[in-house]
Structure formats: structure tokens, C-alpha cells
């Protein structure tokens, strides 16, 4: 029953929470792609 929150599977609860999905969808690519990428670029030695 949709009204009884305890009967809803955990995965469905996650998928029904748009703000949790928003958090995950921003954080994962930001960490793996942007932050990791920028850290690598910042560590490239500057030519003299």
C-alpha cells in the first residue's frame, strides 16, 4: 500500500525522493569528473 510507508522497498524510497537523486546526480560527476580533473590539472608542474 502506498500509504503505508513501511511497506515501500528501500530502493523505491530512494527513487521517489527527487532531492536525494539531485544530490547524487550532482555530487558523483562533480567529484569524479570536475574535482578530480581540476586537481590533476592543478598538479601539472608549471614550465619555467
Amino acid at each position, binding site marked *: 500500500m502506498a500509504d503505508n510507508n513501511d511497506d515501500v522497498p528501500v530502493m523505491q524510497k530512494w527513487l521517489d525522493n527527487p532531492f536525494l537523486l539531485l544530490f547524487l*546526480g*550532482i555530487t558523483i*560527476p562533480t567529484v569524479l*569528473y*570536475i574535482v578530480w580533473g*581540476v586537481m590533476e*590539472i592543478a598538479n601539472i608542474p608549471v614550465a619555467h
Partner: protein
Amino acid sequence: MATTYRICPRSGLQFDTEAEKLMRFHAVCGVLSLLVGGIMALGVILTRWPAVHLLSADVFYMVLTAHGIDMLIFWIIFFEMAVLIFASSTLLHCRLATPKLAWLSSWLMVLGAIMTNVAIFQGESSVMFTSYVPMQAKWHFYLGLILFAVGALLICFIFLGTLVVAKAEKTYEGSIPLVTFGALTACIIAIFTIASGAIILIPTFFWSIGYIREIDSLMYRVVWWGLGHSSQQINVSAHVAIWYAIAAIVFGAKPMSEKVSRTAYFLYILFLQLASAHHILSDPGMSSEWKIVNTSYFMYFAVLASMIHGMTVPGAIEQAQRLKGYNKGLFEWLRKAPWGNPAFSSMFLSLIGFGFLGGISGVMMGAEQLNMLIHNTIYVPGHFHATVVIGTTLAFMGLTYFLVPVLFKREVLFPGFAKIQPYLFGLAMYIVSLVMMGAGTLGVSRRHWDMAFAGAPMAYEWPGAAYLMMGLTGIFGVVAIVGGAGWILQIVLSIFFGKKLEEGEIRSTPIPLTLPPPAPAGAAHPPATPGTMVLALIFLTAFILYYFVNWKYLSSLWGLS
């Protein structure tokens, strides 16, 4: 803010009045952007066709910039904003959150689009879609993109706000519909995309007006592709949602498994944006770990998700058709599909072209080693014309055939042309994508004004096949442009001169969404889908063969065996 709701007598859909106006506004802005981008496409294609070579270098790069920005940013994002409003307010039977802010955001997008186009056509911002630094455009090129992005970002938040409104006002129970979930995926990717754009375009704007001395070119490329590629992943989520919607509209098809389809979207939310790293695979500054983790290990989860959607959409159609009695053999359900209905034919051509041409080539390009075969060649536009033009634009075109009577309340004019338009445009684009990829495999560079390098001290002798394929790109590109122009003309004329249709009942309160009850225990299982399974196996075979052929090609280039 009080609003009214219109019940469409043709579809049964319920439109919040303000949301409906906004959808029409965004659809029209999208089509106008497509018109500008399409005219520019003619300039691009007639210049890259070696026998014609129409434009001078300066004009070509200006036209190419306008084509890229108008098609890849303005057309698709305007249309996607219409999809977000539709998937929230209309499908959830609720009012749109903050309609005044939505109008302000929409006009901000229009202002931004006009500003960027003015900058391009003034001729001093021919930096192309990627606008790589240290090439510098005029300040209003960047400012226009920023304003457009801010407007789009606000509409994404209005979409999320509308989900909150629908839940608070209990216009639906349980989970949001699958199409809305697909739109939510597109919205989340859009927010990442726009944030990435803001991170890099705001400092680049200040650089263009002299407040910042320099922008690191590699830093720009990495962060910019968070915008450039992810914006195309908004398309993927949106057009997959449209595939599900058209399957439901045309066939009454229900998803084979809501859980599986939602899990596939969840994989998109987590991993699809990482494909941005494809563009950096040949850059020396980034480690192989960063490249491979982003484009291979994690990105393959998103590829898996696309393959799931590619199977569940035709599978749902097959189930619906078999329930109607089309049970003979493996493919009666497909043979008896309404191939003359442009909404269906557009959707199916979009699905097959996106999977076979765009999907397989995209995975091949995403392998770091194989990427070296085709990096910065015209193979890359061949790939993304398969994903964005065949996959996204064709799906959007198909949905529009449904929207003209439902949203604009007009009958579609020239129904005979509507039957052939998806084939004219779609199949021509199939060939364009294939020959572009063929020419790219031979090394023909992307973007270059003159593949012959005429007058250069060290000319390069291309094989005849490269010229042949660029010639075919020109011929079929023109055919596709005729198909696209015909669609624009048909839609615009239908909106202005099509027979007016009944508006439907206007209400002051919404009717809540009622979902069908779950199937009772012991209910008959839906029919099996052997035809879809065969299609999936053909796809996998093509995938494996193409992957193998490219590794073999790479090994022969390097002379390792």
C-alpha cells in the same frame, strides 16, 4: 496564484493554463532556433562538400559557430524546457510552481539566445560551439550563454518545485509516472550541466572584458565539457522519456518493468555525465586513471542503462501489439505497426539510429586507445549527428506531431507529407552519419574549412573514398535539410493555418491523477517478447563486430602484429 485547467478532448490530458502557454512558448522558441541552425547547416554542408565548397573560410567558421550553438544548445534546451513543464504540471495534474518566475526565466533564455546569436553574426565570435580558449569571442557571446543558462536553471528548479506542489496537493499517489521520472533525470543532468557551464563561462566572460588575464586552456576544456557533453545527455534522458511517452500514446504500451526502467534512469543520474571525459582522451595533461574511470568503468553503467531502454521500449510495444492479436512469427507486431503515423515512425527511427549508429560509435570512441583512431576527425560529428539529430531531434519531431492538435489545438496540415517526413529526414541523417564516420575513419578532420588543404606547403593526398564520402555527406545532408525544413514549414503553417480544433472543458480545479490499480495476484502474465530479443541480439552482434573491427584496425595502424 489562481489558475484554470483545460481538459484536452483529444488526449484527455489536463493543462494548467500558464503551463500550457509556457510549453507553446518554448516549443516555438525551439523551432525558431532550429530554423536558424538549419539554415546554417546548409552553409556548413555545402562548404564541406568538396565539389561545392561554397563559403569563404571566415564565413564558414561563423556559420559553423551559429549552427553548433543554435542546434546543440538553444533548440534542444528550449524544447526540453517544454518537456519538463509538460512532464511535471500536465502529467501530474497540478499547477505549475511560480509561473511568473517561469515567464521571467523564459524571457531570460530568449534574451540570452538573441545576444549570443547577435555576437556570432557580428562576425567576431567565430569560436565554434566549443569556444576553446585562447580563442576569444566578444563579451556578449559569453554573457548571452550565461543568461540563457540562468533561465534554464531556474526552470529546472521550477520543475522540482512543481513536483513538490503535486506531492503536497496530493494530485498523485505513490511514485511519479515513468515519463516524469525520465524528465527528472533530464532535469538533474541539466542542473549539473548548467553549473559546469557557469563555473567556466563566468570567468571566461570576465576574461573577454579584460578583468581576468588568462584562462588555462586545459582547465577550460575539462570544465567546459561538463557543459558541452552533459547538455547532450539531457537530450538522451529527455528523448528516452519521449520514446516511452510515444509508445504509450500510440500503442497504449505499458513499460515491461517499471522497476527496471527506473533503475536504468537511476544509472543515468549517477553516471551519464561522466561521458564528458571522452573529449579529453587525447589531452596529455590528464592521467589515464581519470580518463578510464570516467569514460570506461563508470560510463559503462550508463551504456547498460541505454541498452535497457533500447530493449524495454520496443519490448513494451511488442507486448501491446501481441495483446491486440499480432502474434504471428517474430515480427508481425512490428510489420503491423503504424508506419504511416509520423509520431511512431519518428520514434522508432530515432530509437534504432540512436542505438546502432550513435550508441555503438559512442562506446567505441569512449575507449582511450580506439579514440586515437578518430579523435578530432569528422567521425565525431558523425557520431553526434546520430545521437542528437537522429536520436533527439527526430524524437522531438515525432512528439510535435502529437502536440500540434493537443497543445496548439490545430489540425496538422499536409498529412501526406507528414507520413514521409520522418523517413526523408531520418534516413538521410542515417546516411550522413555513416559517411561522416567513414570519412573520419580515413582521417578527414572535423570543422576544417578545406579538407584538400589547397595552397598549403605540405598538402595531403586523401584516398578517393574520403572525397566520395564527403560528397555523399553533402548530397544526403541537403536531403536531410529538405526534410527538416519541410517539418518546420509544416508545423508553423499548421499552427497558424491548420483547422481549429475544439478547446475542451475549462475547470478551476484539477482532476487528480488516477493510476491504474496494480495487477491482482494470479493475473495473466504479459506476452513474451521474442521479436525484441532477436533485435537485441542483432544489436549486440553488431556491437561486438564493430568493436572488434576497430581494435583490429588499430593494431594494423600500429603494426604490432
